[in-house]
């Protein structure tokens, strides 16, 4: 049974965490004397007051039940998205109620899909808040809360079960209570390193911070209307490409590489396969772009590498309008929008590990057809995958594709053209951001009907919470 007051208490912590970032954004607004100051300060005060309230009444708990962890995880995301829209909506401009909600969900789920036609018109305080939403959503707000709060083991383990997938836990090869520390170390190290590099390459400090947050969280929010194309600097693109790739890899493996462990991104088989697949994609697209004389050889590699890594990492930053590329390249990019990064990273989508596991399961089934009495096991990095986990992966992939089709169908019912409907659906459920048609690389979601924006927001949340958690919560509520 779920103890409502405990759920409320942790939701309060989440509000307090949001309030902290809102206050920082308000300070930036204050420094630049911007019109967003009131909106940010007011939102921060409201969040802080509502977040403190449950803390006053509910006492500390020693243990958190799994269902409570699940409820806090799902409701925490929803609450964060609702709270996150407050400064946008109060400030106004292009932000109607629907647009503010869409932008907030897009930020927290690190999708990076925007309704803004002129990002550069936003005051810096609001731009920082927009980047902060990605930063918070990158590793998940619950994990952030765990990092700040010295919670007991019983509480932490429930959150891990709700927030970190079983497949992801496998590559951490450590006790669950160390996982948060590892994730935080990698997350902050990558952000700090990228900020320093971007600043050194000539970006302003503010742009460097915002783009680092956006890259490592794989959200794709930029401070410029033309995204990274606005800088037109190959060195900046190379740095961002490298960090996008790192952000799409398992943080446990990155930590292992950083600390010189044997099992790292270069020795792990799925990780190596992932890099090979990405490199093959880049080569194929670059070859076609060069062959069709779209760009010079160097530029073909530059744009192909950036776009492939941007989409597979679900970042969605842009340097070229990919909708103008040849069809084969577009199809490959669509594949990468589905495949996405690895588990244990900040990327969304199906995840490469699941696809890797899927093909191994298929191979196992084929062997079983040939040798019905044989005993075969699916192995990943020398570890046998339990049948239950194998089944879980299959169910996830089926649910993912099913949700994608249902959303596309509903979008086309709302009057959107086929290309826009399908690409908006895969771009949001995979938390990628840009798609094709009206929502192409340099396009945005502003022209969509309000109902479509709400549907896509739900899609983004489903994608971020890996579908199963939301369905599990609905089942739990239904049973109650």
């Amino acid at each position: 049974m779920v103890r409502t007051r405990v759920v409320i208490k942790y939701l309060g912590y989440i509000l307090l965490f949001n309030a902290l970032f809102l206050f920082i954004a308000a300070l930036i607004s204050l420094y630049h004397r911007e019109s967003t100051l009131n909106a940010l300060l007011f939102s921060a005060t409201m969040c802080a007051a509502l977040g403190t309230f449950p803390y006053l009444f509910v006492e500390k708990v020693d243990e958190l039940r799994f269902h409570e962890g699940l409820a806090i995880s799902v409701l925490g995301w929803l609450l964060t998205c609702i709270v996150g829209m407050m400064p946008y909506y109060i400030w106004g401009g292009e932000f109607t109620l629907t647009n503010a909600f869409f932008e907030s969900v897009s930020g927290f789920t690190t999708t990076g899909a925007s309704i803004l036609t002129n990002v550069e018109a936003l005051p810096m305080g609001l731009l920082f808040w927009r980047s902060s939403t990605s930063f918070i959503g990158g590793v998940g707000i619950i994990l952030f809360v765990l990092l700040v709060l010295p919670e007991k083991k019983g509480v932490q383990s429930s959150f891990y079960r709700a927030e970190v997938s079983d497949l992801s836990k496998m590559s951490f090869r450590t006790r669950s209570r160390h996982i948060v520390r590892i994730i935080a170390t990698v997350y902050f190290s990558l952000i700090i390193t990228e900020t320093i590099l971007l600043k050194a390459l000539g970006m302003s400090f503010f742009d460097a911070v915002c783009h680092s947050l956006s890259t490592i969280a794989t959200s794709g929010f930029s401070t410029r209307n033309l995204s990274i194309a606005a800088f037109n600097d190959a060195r900046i693109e190379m740095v961002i490409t490298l960090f996008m790739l790192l952000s799409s890899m398992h943080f446990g493996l990155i930590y292992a590489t950083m600390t010189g462990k044997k099992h790292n991104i270069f020795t792990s088989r799925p990780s190596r396969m992932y890099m090979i697949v990405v490199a093959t994609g880049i080569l194929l697209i670059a070859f076609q772009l060069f062959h069709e004389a779209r760009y010079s050889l160097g530029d073909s590699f530059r744009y192909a590498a950036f776009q492939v890594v941007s989409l597979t990492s679900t970042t969605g930053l842009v340097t070229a309008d990919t909708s103008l590329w040849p069809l084969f390249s577009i199809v490959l990019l669509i594949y990468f929008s589905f495949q996405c990064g690895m588990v244990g990273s900040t990327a969304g989508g199906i995840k490469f590990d699941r696809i890797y596991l899927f093909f191994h399961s298929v191979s196992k089934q084929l062997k079983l057809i040939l040798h019905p009495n044989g005993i075969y096991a699916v192995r990943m990095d020398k570890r046998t995958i339990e049948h239950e986990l194998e089944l879980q992966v299959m169910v996830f992939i089926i649910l993912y594709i099913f949700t994608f089709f249902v959303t596309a169908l509903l979008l086309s019912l709302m009057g959107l053209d086929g290309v826009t409907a399908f690409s908006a659906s895969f771009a949001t459920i995979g938390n990628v951001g840009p798609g094709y048609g009206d929502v192409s690389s340099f396009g945005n979601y502003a022209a969509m009907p309000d109902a479509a924006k709400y549907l896509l927001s739900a899609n983004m949340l489903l994608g971020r919470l890996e579908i199963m958690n939301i369905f599990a919560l609905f089942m739990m509520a239904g049973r109650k």
Partner: protein
Amino acid sequence: MHTPKAHHLPFGVCSLKKEAILSATGEKKLILHPENRQQPIQTTMIRSLQIKLVLSLSLLVVMLLAAAVMSMMEFRNMGDSVKGVLNNNFSSIEAAKRMMDALEREDSGLLLWIIGEQEEGSQTIHASHAIIRSALEDAVKNITETDEPRHISDITESYDAYHASVLSILEGALPPAEAKEIYNSETQSLFFSAKETVNALLMLNQEQMYHQSEIIQERSRRAMMPAFISLAAAVLFALLLFYFIRIYFFRPVKKLTESIRDYYPEKGRLDACIATRDEFKQLEEEMNNLISRLLWRREQPKE
């Protein structure tokens, strides 16, 4: 002094020493030594219900205060915008209209002069010239837009050229036919060009006024927003407060009531299962102390 004698109460109040002392009057009175009382829970661990309520209501006050302050600031900003529109754009528009009117009159004055009404025409021209100069000064005083100085300079330039042409007709004392020809060939085009520049200033300020009105509309929306949000937050707050009052006030009262109702001495301790460390827990402890004293007294042999 009589040595206190140990007694074992039938129920398990473990912390009590179950000892009695005689009162100073010598009367055999059974009281518990202060040390023997069950210790109340540590004060530092208590989260007083009073404090909880006071703090939570303070939070509500903070929220409402934030909403009020933000509304006031936005209304003040809105007031500033309205003042800006009235003081700057509206004054410039008025000045431009005056210029336009005076230009028309100056042109009419010239035409009067050409058709022979020289005195009236000359008076009209001079009066209009004074009005235009004064309106230009007003426009210079109310420069608020980026492009405004350029527009005013254009007006000054084009009007000076036009007025010079008018004066050349007036001072040359030309015959009407020749004056008419000069008017048609030169002065009229200068008049139109001066009018155009004044019109540009008028348009600029009108556009800015429209833009300002949009800003005012935005600010009024922002001023209203805190009210809506704080209303929603207050509703949420009220719901939460009701929930917590139910959990932390009504439920313990109900538990205590039920445990008192179901209590009988053989049960020993009154166990209301109050999990919180607040006044209700203290009340439960004190009730147990009271029960232990009463039961212990009942067990004492009568004198």
